[in-house]
Every structure is written in C-alpha cells, then in structure tokens.
C-alpha cells in the first residue's frame, strides 16, 4: 500500500493501528521497517522547516511501481510505503517503509532496496528554509 500524507504521522502508532486491522505481522513472521525523520540540520546549517514538493500522479505511480517490483523480486506478504508531502518541521517523520515476509533475509533485502530505490527515483524535492529565513533546494540525496 502507498500513501502520500499532507499531515504529520507517528509511524509506530500507524503500524500498531494497521496491525490491529490487518494482522499481517502475525501471519508473516518477519517485518523489516525503515523510518526517516527530518533533522534540524543539513549540510552544516540549521534548518527550521522544509517543503516537500511532489509530482501528483507520477509520484504515486512510481511508488506503486517500486512496491510491485519488490513484491515480484522477493517473497513478501505485504509492502507499505508512507511518505510526507508539503510543509515539514524537524522531528517529524518523512518516510516509512515496511515489509512483511516469512523470511527475515527477504524482509531486510526488500526494505533496504525499497528505500534506496525511493531515494533515487521517487519524484520528491526538498526545499529547506534555514533559520535566517533563506530558502534553498536540496541538490541531491546523500549516498547509502
């Protein structure tokens, strides 16, 4: 499942509620999760907020493509990708990638691969507002 969210969310609360409704963790045996959170500094500067632009239509399509590709490559029970859009402030989660499988190696591999693919190919762009109110686009993601 893919979700773009304009509002802040707690990934653990999100997973707890999802677990109650779907029970996929119970069936699967292994869950590998990644959560990326906004920090209050980047490239040596203090950042007070961030705006996350996306490409409506393509962003969803690309995330769906990544999830479908992971489901095809590994033996998975489910894939969940949640990504924030819009205005984000430090300490807020930006991305949640969760993968459920009967096998822990597949869960780890798929989760990591999904995060790397998302970073390289999902159409999101970060615009940072520094503490002096100046604005800049993040030029590229950090490797690995």
């Amino acid at each position, binding site marked *: 499942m893919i979700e773009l969210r304009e509002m802040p969310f707690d990934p653990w609360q999100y997973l707890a509620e999802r677990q109650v409704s779907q029970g996929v963790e119970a069936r699967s045996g292994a869950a590998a999760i990644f959560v*990326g959170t906004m920090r209050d500094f980047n490239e040596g500067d203090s950042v007070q907020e961030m705006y996350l632009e996306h490409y409506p*239509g*393509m962003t969803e399509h690309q995330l769906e493509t990544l999830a479908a590709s992971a489901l095809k490559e590994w033996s998975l029970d489910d894939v969940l990708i949640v990504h924030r859009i819009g205005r984000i402030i430090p300490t807020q989660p930006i991305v949640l990638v969760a993968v459920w499988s009967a096998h822990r190696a597949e869960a780890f591999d798929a989760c990591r691969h999904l*995060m790397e693919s998302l*970073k390289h190919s999902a*159409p*999101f*762009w970060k615009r940072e507002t520094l503490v002096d109110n100046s604005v800049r686009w*993040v030029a590229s*993601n950090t490797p690995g």
Partner: protein
Amino acid sequence: MAFLLGAILNGILSIMLVKVLFFASLRERLGVGQVMLDTHEAISVQEVWQRSSGENVLPVNVLIAVNHTYSDAAALVQPGDEVAFFPPVTGG
C-alpha cells in the same frame, strides 16, 4: 447542447496538445511550471524541451518523464502526452 459541443471540442483540442511540466528548482529557474504545446504529430522529448523551455540544450542532470514514466531525450512524444522535466529527486 452548446455545453456538450464545447466539451467535445475541448477533448479534441487537448488531444493535439502536449502538456509540459517543470518541477522544483527547474521550475523556479525557468519561471514557468506548465506549458501546453500544440502539435499534430509525434515530436521528440528534445524538441519538447526546446519549444517549452526556450533553451536549446537539455541539461544532463534534468530527469524526464513521459506519462508518469521515466524516459529520455530521444523518446517520441504523441499529441495528448504529458512530459515532465525535473531536477534530481531528493525524497525519503
């Protein structure tokens, strides 16, 4: 009736247009977010770039999507397609 005719004409017209989108820092640099190109035949992404951005050279780090799928400068675009140009992505 007039409304219906308008809707049909609109549909026909949009089929002969290529919708071009620019995102993020590229949109800010060009000062434009969307351009509708009028074309009756297939044209290359390279030509879409030239006609929509006003620049001859497509920068090497600009990414290209045709109908929400990654593509390249040599790809052919049909009337009715959506083409997007954007800088390296920085999500996650």
